[in-house]
């Protein structure tokens, strides 16, 4: 199965390799970073990698920008790139912006409520609340909780 990994194949699919690298980088940052803003940055990198995948799909070898001349005299010899993935990604970009802004708004509120945006600090506060709850409600139920 490794025969297909020729030099042309590897270089010719550069966009896709970079897509995979970006995607895994983004996903790793989301998982590994404790700071909520950095997590969000990772999430953005992850999302942007998908934009790259789609735009690479739309590329047609030798194709030009998919814009017809204003006089609509279309030369049948001209090859155009596929515009559909670009349009889809415009939508996905809008979704990404909405997600980012909502996440940032949530982070602001978390900062107000917890006085930290580090995951470790938040977890500490939340487990303290949980312990307190379990103590109160556990005792009330005869230590069963």
């Amino acid at each position, binding site marked *: 199965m490794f025969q297909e990994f020729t030099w042309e194949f590897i270089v010719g699919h550069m966009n896709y390799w970079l897509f995979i690298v970006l995607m895994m980088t983004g996903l790793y940052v989301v998982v590994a970073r404790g700071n909520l803003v950095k997590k969000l940055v990772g999430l953005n990198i*992850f999302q942007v990698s*998908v934009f790259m995948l789609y735009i690479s799909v739309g590329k047609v070898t030798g194709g030009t920008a998919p814009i017809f001349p204003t006089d609509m005299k279309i030369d049948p010899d001209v090859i155009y790139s596929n515009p559909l993935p670009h349009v889809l990604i415009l939508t996905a970009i809008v979704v990404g912006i909405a997600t980012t802004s909502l996440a940032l708004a*949530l982070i602001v*509120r978390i900062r107000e409520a*917890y006085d930290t945006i580090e995951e470790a600090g938040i977890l500490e506060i939340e487990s303290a609340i949980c312990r307190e709850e379990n103590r109160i409600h556990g005792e*009330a139920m005869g230590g069963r909780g």
Partner: protein
Amino acid sequence: MATDVTQTAASLADHLPVLQVLVPFIAAPLTVLIGSRRLAWPIAFAASAAATAIAFALLMQVIGGGVISYHLGGWAPPIGIEYRVDATNAFVLLLVSGISTVVLIYARVSVAAEVPRRQHTLFYTAYLLCLTGLLGVAVTGDAFNVFVFLEISSLSTYVLIAQGAYRDKRALTAAFDYLIMGTIGATFFVIGIGLLYMATGTLNMADIAERIAEQGSNRTVQSAFAFIVVGVGLKVAIYPLHLWLPNAYTFAPSAISAFLAATATKVAVYVLMRFIFTVYQPGFPFAVNTLIVIIIPFAVLAMFAASFIAVFQTDFKRMLAYSSVAQIGYILLGIGLLSETGLTAGIAHLFNHAITKATLFMGVGAFVLRAGGSFYDRIEGLGRTMPWTSAAVVIGGLSLIGVPGTAGFISKWLLVQAALEKGWWPVAMLIVASSLLAVVYVWRVVEALYLKTPGTAAAAAARDVPLGMLLPLWGMALATIYFGFDTNLTLGASRTAAQALLAGGFGAH
């Protein structure tokens, strides 16, 4: 293609598929533009009720096995976006809009108590957007459109969950966690769609299905399937991907917990079914292997692990959240059995569990309103002081276990039958055994409600909630009993849907 497909849109009735989405979608900004706190709820309710009526009309048109194809803007598919309604999604549409309407009646009092007044207008806007997204996911026949609507519903869901922060600040982190996981899920889904587009050059589900059938299995199509299952699996909360769910349901406002538990995960299950059975044919070997090797074991694991965790909770609401993860296991098991009975059981359980969980979460909201919390020690003795609310909760609990005479019994019974039909009797035993765990966790609630004396002053002074909350609660509770006896609608629609799904394609053969 099919002969019974409606092509032209001449009258308003022909526009029903798009009106299904447009009514709540236009009502959402309307609430903001009018800007009146007093009018926000009536607008939301009217839109939701209209959506329910439309969904009912659609279901009546397709319950016999027909298909409605609606061309958005008059552009014919596969180039234009197509809305395609068959028995499966008409059933989901009716479920989502119906639950939404009942929960809205309940929300009027419940939300007033749990969310500050100044937020009410925007709260109902977000609610309507969430409804729009969920209905859109169900109605569309275009793969990328699914992603867009999924994100509309998800983004508004994050906002709605965060509204619980006025009672407990952990709602904020619950919403943030869900946002991170939900976005990863949606992005995985969109990668899967991208790969499908690479392999087939189209985004129309029926069209993708035809081309996959033509070209057979290849690595691109297989990895697309993997990405889609994991992506949607995060939204469904398939067992190991469920981590966002308990906190989100526990800290969201009660009305939102009821709405989400009954609709959001169910719509995601629908998307999963649509992709497994319609886009990929039921016989697609890679999909079949995924179901048998991955989905079924995790479904069984969910039934036990999540039920087991539910037994040890001290909070009624959190217990219900874990029980939801377990119940999703039953639905997925039904789908994974890949037989007509199994799929019918899965779809019927999707409906029955939705009304059961709506009842229970609304009951929790009532306890929160009167006793100030849903921890077991707070709700002790409420069976005496809040008899009507508690009775409805008990009915919901019985349906959760699957006691005969309730909706939960019908679908679980069918599920056991489906497992036996396949000769998988150990699975049938596991279904029964996991129901025993449900008996334990429901009993803990019943014990707290009826066998204890009120532990707090609030519980002792509690009285039944206002009719605005009690009526929808009892409406749902009676529905769980009704659908436990009259199974024509649920099983009829589920069976038509199952047959259509197993036939492959988009009901167009």
